[in-house]
């Protein structure tokens, strides 16, 4: 397409002016929405409760880096839904799952959450894993006044009316782990974590706890998420010679960390590692020989001895294969579906307001023991357990809290944590 010369004029400059004019006109005519301080027109829920079924969303990463973990959560969500449907559904309606892929990207989580609420008109959404995905979804659920059930332990300091947190907050995982270490005579700690919000918050809590309890923190190191280069850090850990290591690494970094740890000759006997992100699923990839005897802090292990857990593990293996294992987030997700169903039954309504109203005090007898929703902060009470990784790849409880611990996401009940508290 040869260009012609001697054209009289180019229209583009004027097109530019014209399009700018269009924008301003459009903006001017459209800009009659709510301004700061005014109440925005609330989005109407399109939830339809007239049929025989009720839709819920399952929003987990099925692709990308987080798919490893989140597909397991999805499996237990499906299991719980099947169980409820087999028992007659919720308010006599069959639960229908609308599944979406969060693709391990916060932006996609926000987008899919909005789709589930506004297009699929689901009654509640189950899922999310990373804090980033939860933070991305939070405004979506608040703006559209809908419900998210989030099943993973997290860094606390959050309480939204529209989110039910069925994983542990810090006082149900980090603090019991520290209590356990202090009990066993640990006087110095080395902190190793991935560089994101959970390890940073956890370590802030650990530092405050350590100061109040006479424990010395000898070092605090962060690596980029996914980093597999631990030569420098393990050398520093080795040189520091702490009584124990508190590990908040995430994902593949654990593999490289524990290999390096073992290879420089460190053992659980002379320097145990307390991990808060390693569950049954992760042990295989790290290699038993590198991690046997190390500690973990969770609320649930596959080996928890109770009838409900035996039933849960059996049902899960029957559904997904005997080689599969169950882990804490899977159990919390399983609980979350049952908690939602129980709340709906109690409220006798699927409406968000009614569910929020009825949630406080709702209990479910889950695999980890009884969990109860705390109506003040939408978290649940949970039993803390320290587990030791054994040669068969499973974790066995070596210590557990005396009954369920009440959730305290803002650590109001801990004086030494006063400086950590949000000021408002």
């Amino acid at each position: 397409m040869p260009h012609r010369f001697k054209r009289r004029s180019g229209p583009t400059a004027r097109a530019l002016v014209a399009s700018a004019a269009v924008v301003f006109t459009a903006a001017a005519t459209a800009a009659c929405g709510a301004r700061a301080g005014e109440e925005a027109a609330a989005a109407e829920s399109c939830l339809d409760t007239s049929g025989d079924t009720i839709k819920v969303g399952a929003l987990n990463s099925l692709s990308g880096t987080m798919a490893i973990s989140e597909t397991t959560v999805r499996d237990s969500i499906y299991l719980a839904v099947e169980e409820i449907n087999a028992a007659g559904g919720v308010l006599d309606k069959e639960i229908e799952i609308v599944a979406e892929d969060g693709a391990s990207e916060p932006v996609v989580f926000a987008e899919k959450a909005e789709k589930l609420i506004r297009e699929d008109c689901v009654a509640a959404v189950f899922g999310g894993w990373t804090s980033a995905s939860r933070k991305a979804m939070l405004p979506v659920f608040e703006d559209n006044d809908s419900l998210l059930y989030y099943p993973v332990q997290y860094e606390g300091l959050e309480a939204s009316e529209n989110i039910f947190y069925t994983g542990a907050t810090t006082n149900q995982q980090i603090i019991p782990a520290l209590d356990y270490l202090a009990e066993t005579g640990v006087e110095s700690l080395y902190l190793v974590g991935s560089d994101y919000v959970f390890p940073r918050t956890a370590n802030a809590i650990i530092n405050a706890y350590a100061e109040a309890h006479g424990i010395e923190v000898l070092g605090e190191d962060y690596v980029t998420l996914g980093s597999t280069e631990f030569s420098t850090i393990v050398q520093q850990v080795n040189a520091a010679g702490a009584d124990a290591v508190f590990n908040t690494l995430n994902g593949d970094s654990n593999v490289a960390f524990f290999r390096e740890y073992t290879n420089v000759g460190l053992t659980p006997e002379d320097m145990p590692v307390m991990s808060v992100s390693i569950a049954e699923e992760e042990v295989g990839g790290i290699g038993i020989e590198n991690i046997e005897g190390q500690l973990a802090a969770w609320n649930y292990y596959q080996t928890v001895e109770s009838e409900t857990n035996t039933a849960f593990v059996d049902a899960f293996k029957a559904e997904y294969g005997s080689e599969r294992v169950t882990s804490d987030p899977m159990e919390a997700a399983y609980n979350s579906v049952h908690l939602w169903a129980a709340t709906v039954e109690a409220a006798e309504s699927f409406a968000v307001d009614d569910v929020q109203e009825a949630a406080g005090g709702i209990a479910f007898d889950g695999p980890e023991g009884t969990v109860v929703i705390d109506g003040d902060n939408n978290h649940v009470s949970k039993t803390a357990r320290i587990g030791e990784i054994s040669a068969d790849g499973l974790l066995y409880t070596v210590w557990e809290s005396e009954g369920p611990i009440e959730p305290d996401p803002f650590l109001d009940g801990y004086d030494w944590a006063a400086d950590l508290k949000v000021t408002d």
Partner: protein
Amino acid sequence: MSKFLQSRLGAWTGFAAAAIGLFAVAPLIMSGFRLGLFAQFICYAIVAVGIGLAWGRGGMLTLGQGVYFGMGAYLMAMHLKMADAEFRNGPGAVPDFMELAGVRELPAYWVPFASPAFTVAAILVLPTAVAVLLGLAVFKRRVKGAYFAILSQALAGAFAIFLIGQQTLGGFNGLSYFRYFFGFAINDPVNQQMLYFIAAGVLLAVVAVSLQLRRSRYGELLVAVRDSEERVRFLGYDSANIKVVAYAVAALFASVAGALFVPVVGIISPASIGIVPSIMFILGVAIGGRGTLLGPVIGALAVAWAQTTLSEQFPSAWTYAQGLLFVVVIALLPGGISSIPALARRIRVKNRPEPVEATA
């Protein structure tokens, strides 16, 4: 058809049709949710227009547009967080996420972003200035081709990692939970539609700027640099300057797109601007036709739409599709879908040699 689009009437008609489509038809046929999604796609399309200029016309394969996209987005997000905090707790208040991270004092570099005017100026100036400096640094030293591509990619990686380490920028979680956009409540559907209109208007403006640059003498010069940089230098031009302009304009477009992305989507985090998102910006441009004006726009919209729709049903298949698209389109159809009509014409009139649009 291309002749018609070249003409003055054609350009006017094209713009009018696009304006009607974007401003009148789309809001009628799409739900509020879909319109918001479309606004998000438009942000990607704005980035694509810039890449079309730098890569399609200028031959600079910028695998790091996420950097400028991210700059614009973070600058805007900082203002929105400041405005929210000010609205809740008065001037100088610390944004909510910093309170959670234990930051009690507002970091000094946040302070100016309380001003909307400063923020808008920063969105326009800062990424452009960075692009100019970086462009001068690499192009003056005649770093080009694959070297430039790798460097720009490494830059995106380094920038994302840098942001993850910055707790006062939200770290890995990024910045989210915005309530007001220059005083308007973001959760109000009317205002959401306004955001869409702004995005659509910016897209039109960006395409118009790109059109003007392509048709100007500068546009011809840029193609000349792409095809034979040495020849241009031996004609007395400093080719580095020519490249820097296109690179900086692409950076500016990306920055503006990022700034719009934040209120539209409601979150910006390092996950949206690293190496992989940056290279994914390229995919749409390649599919649409890198050398053409509208190809990148159409390609970017199509890819974003396909990603959303296909990944809903087949998450694993979508990754295969993405990979295959890269391979098939770039290897076999380097001109993208825009070149299909020309190809078809060439096959029809096989005897007569037909000039083909450049695809270096």
